[in-house]
């Protein structure tokens, strides 16, 4: 009897392992259309360029070697706050406030624009990432909300054939398989493992990021009690608009602000779980527009909000994206997935 039970359990475990392995392989290793990566590349590159451009007026104040926080001071503050000063490498540590700093800054913008337009895509992607990291590591204490998101998007999109569509590489080198340089820089329009891997990494990372954002809000009474949106709007120095007029709406105004705060928290907590279900995905992506537009107005994090909105595109199926942007829907034929042995 027990012999049969052991045999059944072993079979069940084997079946489960086989099933899990097949699903794992399908999730990570099925070739995917590179179109979503190309669309994301344009948005991420453009937002990275904007991010660099808006740093311009305060370049000397924050990022010059002789700026408000010198590299030594920044390192010492990191050590004193228990963060450790290691692994913060930046070429900006060596450039004082001078024309050279502006030249280096202009290069960073050019790299980001090259990535957005798909010029030497993989190289410009990596260079944009290096430039972005240099700003972060120069003064980590004042790094903003957008940088951690930009860094993983740039990293994953540099891995992907993100220049396969809508890129200058495509025009310069074509998509011919003979052009190995073109294939290396831009990638091929053929469904590929790298396109899938990159998209999946973005999806999982975005989901984890939402979980982190939602969970940290649970630490504060302001989000539980729904007053967080008002608290942000009531700031006199950092607010984007004067919301004191809302008081005229009395209790109804307060209820509306409470509702917004609750919606934001519930959305951020629901996203990492429900985004994987086909039924909830469209609703969550539609809701993300409302939530991020609200957060942009309330917090003023314009570029961060737009970037988080754009990450939703990673969850839109390639075929749907094709029809949305008017690309030729017949151009892409999904490659049949050949089940592989479980890993």
């Amino acid at each position, binding site marked *: 009897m027990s012999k049969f039970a052991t045999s059944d359990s072993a079979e069940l475990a084997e079946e489960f392992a086989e099933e899990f392995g097949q699903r794992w392989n399908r999730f990570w290793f099925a070739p995917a259309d590179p179109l979503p990566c190309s669309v994301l590349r344009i948005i991420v590159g453009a937002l990275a360029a904007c991010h660099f451009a808006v740093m311009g007026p305060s370049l000397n104040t924050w990022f010059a070697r002789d700026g408000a926080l010198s590299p030594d001071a920044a390192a010492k503050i990191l050590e004193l706050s228990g963060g450790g000063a290691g692994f913060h490498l930046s070429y900006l540590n060596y450039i004082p406030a001078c024309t050279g700093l502006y030249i280096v800054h202009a290069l960073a913008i050019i790299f980001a624009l090259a990535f957005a337009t798909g010029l030497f895509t993989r190289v410009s992607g990596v260079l944009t990432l290096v430039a972005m990291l240099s700003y972060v590591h120069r003064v980590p204490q004042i790094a903003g909300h957008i940088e951690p998101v930009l860094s993983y998007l740039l990293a994953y999109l540099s891995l992907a054939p993100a220049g396969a569509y809508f890129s200058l590489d495509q025009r310069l080198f074509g998509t011919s398989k003979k052009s190995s340089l073109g294939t290396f820089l831009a990638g091929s329009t053929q469904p590929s493992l790298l396109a899938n891997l990159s998209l999946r990494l973005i999806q999982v990372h975005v989901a984890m990021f939402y979980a982190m954002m939602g969970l940290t809000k649970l630490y504060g009474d302001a989000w539980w009690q729904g007053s967080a949106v008002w608290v942000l709007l009531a*700031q006199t120095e950092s607010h984007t608009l004067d919301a004191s007029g809302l008081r005229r709406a009395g209790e109804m105004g307060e209820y509306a602000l409470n509702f917004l705060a609750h919606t934001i928290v519930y959305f951020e907590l629901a996203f990492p779980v429900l985004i994987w279900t086909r039924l909830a995905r469209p609703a969550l992506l539609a809701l993300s527009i409302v939530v991020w537009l609200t957060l942009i107005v309330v917090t003023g994090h314009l570029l961060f909000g737009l970037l988080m909105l754009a990450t939703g595109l990673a969850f839109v199926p390639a075929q749907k994206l094709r029809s949305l942007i008017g690309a030729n829907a017949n151009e892409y034929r999904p490659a049949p997935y050949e089940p592989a042995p479980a890993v």
Partner: protein
Amino acid sequence: MQLPNTQQAKDDGAIGRSVLSLLICIHLFCVAVVLSSNFRRSALQARLVSIFAGYTKLLHFDPEFTPYYYTLGRTSDDDTWLTIDLYPSADQPVGQQQVAKTIRLPEGGSNWFENRARAFQLAKLLAFNAEPGNENDDLTGEIARSVGGWAMRTTGNHRAVVRCVRRMSQPYDLSTLSAGFPADRPRDPTYEAMLYDADVWTDEDGQVQLLKRASRAEVAPRQSGTSPTTAPSPDPTSK
């Protein structure tokens, strides 16, 4: 029957997938650990974050303590900034000279972009480490010395007073506002509290010196039941 080279290619593919799967798992584990350690870390999380730092910090996958909650409704989440009063002479006390210039961080710019947020963030870091419970004079001194030194260098002055100021926000319901806080003027100085105040000057060797001046004094703008209006009251969002 499969040809031997086809079988070989399949085996190679399986090995490649196995290696990639392992790398994906390691990467996602590192990311999950640093993201879950964004706010309040256990000793285990802190240890793991420091182990993965070479990868996660270098590529900035670790947002460290970036406040993705934006506000928790605490007084410490209210707007905080730095002001630097500059004086021409390092040898004379500030009481005996006129202010040559006052710099404020942030100064100008738009709240729609990160530049102003950077200055608020630095001021909040200083304010946090100037709070009675978390007082870290080395850290606050390093920030004040560096910012004061920069302000003196860029303006050609030799003495400065670096201040960290916080302005408390008004509640939605103005009837809960404590006495003495004007309802119609949310920028009134009554709402402001000086959290840190230090003299910074350049000595004869050209080194920037610092002497901390004052401790913080703060009054809550909101009423809290029967408690005196001028006493620190519980946070408006607390239960």
